[in-house]
């Protein structure tokens, strides 16, 4: 071998990870059935009944993420050192194919646990394939991949077969070709160690060569041992492969994103046309990289002589990083604060988090109606604050109240904000006959804490939720099952590009009804909590 260079160990690590993933994957296959009926149960069984099952799953998942990262770094190293130049153009091309296969392998494995993360991350990914032009091709590719209009039993089986059969077969074939070419041409030398235009990898003097046995072999075995140790330590103490609750095609979690290595495509999609930015644009980037060695035919591999190529690649990395940031759910997707707040309080476990309301102990969910105003003022004055609030919303209101009955029914001169709230709750099939808030009992501190979180969230968005308040309504109509309704009420403001319009003094401009009164709005959502539900807060 021509020499040992630390940056040149990434290819070996990639190869090792292929075997690492194969071994951990085979162990997981023993306990897994690709059917929506049992896949998620298999996951739980691996965590609860299979000795070392969780560790194997963690290692497989961490190894998959690490593999995408290390193969990408290997590719970046190859580009920066100009190792793709003649005679190694085809080696570069097979490497690029291996990177793409690695990405798809990791992506196809995402669906297998059949949890919410799996279903929705893959739904986003598969919808890109649907955009392939012309439409007839996109539609059929989508049908071929998902096995139906939506991902179901057929889709899961297809992803499983791709993950354990088709893609690994391609990976092994191209790894073989890649290795053959590496051995054929030898490792390229670092650019500074070779004369411009010469490929001296095969002509390193005998006394300067590094021999496979024992030098390279011991280095490779050492790296295997160190990498495995790092993975084992991380997986035992620091890393758990995510597992969310069972896949539910009816419930789209807020803020779903594609896997991190496809975030750049998701970011690009936010720029415009789905076909161009989802399919054509990534194909152009991969295409340019694939033919780059045939375009860049200058003989020198030295950095100083390759300013354009290196600038291009650094710009590409920056561009992909920016696009990945744009792919995050918080970028460019405007969700109104009322929806965000209710989601933060009620969402089922996902991404290692759970809505703040769910972990409240069952006995602290005392039936009644509670209002955020209680936590705004003096804590000893809670009862008085709540009583005066009851009075305040019981007063006739002359402005427009945006509740189902008031917006569709005839104008009612005697309407009150309280009646509007009742109307909203009844519209949610909640059996209530009147609205009356009370103070949170002293033995329900967790309920009070969530009320405070809700109040803080509303206050933090006071430009949008003008005169806003929140309410938690807890009801129980059958044994061992309680229902929690959350309501936010506010005065509607004028919105421009998803943000409240401000006047010259920086205050939000209210939307007014035809009579010049502020419009009252409500937003509500609810959740049922069973006595035996076990949610754990962070």
């Amino acid at each position, binding site marked *: 071998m021509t020499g040992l260079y630390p940056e040149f160990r990434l290819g070996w690590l990639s190869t090792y990870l292929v075997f690492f993933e194969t071994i951990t994957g085979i162990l997981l296959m023993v306990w897994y059935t690709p059917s929506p009926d049992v896949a998620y149960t298999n996951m739980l069984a691996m*965590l609860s009944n299979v000795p070392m099952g969780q*560790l194997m799953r963690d290692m497989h998942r961490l190894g998959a993420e690490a593999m995408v990262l290390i193969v990408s770094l290997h590719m970046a190293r190859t580009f920066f050192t100009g190792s793709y130049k003649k005679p190694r153009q085809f080696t570069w091309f097979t490497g690029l194919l291996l990177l793409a296969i690695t990405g798809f392998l990791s992506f196809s494995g995402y669906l297998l646990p059949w949890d919410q993360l799996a279903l929705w991350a893959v739904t986003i990914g598969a919808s890109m394939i649907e955009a392939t032009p012309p439409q007839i091709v996109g539609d059929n590719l989508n049908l071929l991949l998902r096995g139906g209009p939506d991902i179901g039993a057929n889709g899961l089986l297809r992803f499983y077969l791709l993950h354990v059969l088709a893609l690994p077969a391609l990976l092994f074939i191209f790894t073989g070709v890649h290795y053959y070419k590496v051995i054929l041409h030898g490792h390229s030398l670092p650019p500074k160690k070779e004369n411009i235009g010469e490929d001296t990898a095969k002509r390193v003097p005998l006394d300067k060569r590094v021999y496979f046995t024992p*030098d390279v072999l011991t280095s490779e075995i050492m790296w*295997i*041992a160190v990498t*495995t*140790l790092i993975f*084992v330590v991380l997986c*035992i103490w620091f890393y758990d492969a995510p597992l969310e609750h069972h896949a539910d095609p009816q419930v789209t979690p807020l803020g779903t994103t594609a896997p991190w290595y496809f975030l750049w495509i998701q970011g690009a999609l936010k720029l415009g046309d789905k076909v161009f930015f989802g399919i054509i644009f990534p194909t152009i980037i991969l295409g340019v990289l694939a033919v780059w060695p045939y375009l860049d035919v200058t003989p020198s591999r030295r950095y100083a002589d390759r300013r354009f190529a290196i600038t291009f690649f650094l710009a590409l990395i920056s561009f992909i990083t920016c696009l990945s940031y744009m792919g995050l759910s918080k970028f460019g997707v405007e969700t109104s604060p009322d929806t965000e707040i209710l989601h933060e309080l009620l969402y089922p476990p996902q991404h290692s988090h759970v809505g703040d309301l769910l972990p409240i102990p069952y006995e602290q969910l005392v039936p009644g109606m509670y209002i955020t105003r209680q936590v705004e003022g003096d804590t000893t004055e809670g009862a008085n604050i709540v009583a005066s609030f009851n009075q305040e919303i019981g007063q006739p209101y002359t402005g427009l109240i945006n509740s189902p009955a008031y917006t569709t029914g005839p104008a009612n001169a005697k309407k009150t904000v309280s009646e509007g709230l009742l109307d909203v709750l009844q519209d949610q099939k909640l059996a209530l006959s009147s609205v009356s808030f009370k103070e949170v009992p002293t033995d329900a501190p967790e309920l009070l804490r969530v009320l405070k979180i809700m109040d803080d969230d509303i206050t933090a968005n006071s430009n949008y939720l003008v005169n806003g308040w929140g309410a938690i309504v807890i009801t129980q109509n059958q044994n061992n099952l309680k229902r929690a309704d959350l309501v936010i009420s506010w005065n509607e403001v004028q919105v421009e590009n998803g943000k409240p319009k401000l006047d010259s003094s920086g205050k939000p401009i209210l939307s007014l009804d035809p009579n010049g009164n502020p419009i009252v709005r409500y937003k509500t959502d609810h959740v049922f909590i069973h006595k035996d539900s076990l949610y754990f807060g962070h």
Partner: protein
Amino acid sequence: MFERMLVGKIENRITVGLISFVLTMVFLGWAAINEGGRMAAFTQM
């Protein structure tokens, strides 16, 4: 930049590799011993 990561001497490479391997086995053994408790805790949960 990463020259030291290569571990120049073959004796040192063997030592680092052996220590890593032994530690991996110790940690896996430790995890295996605790598997019963972990699985029981998960089932109870």
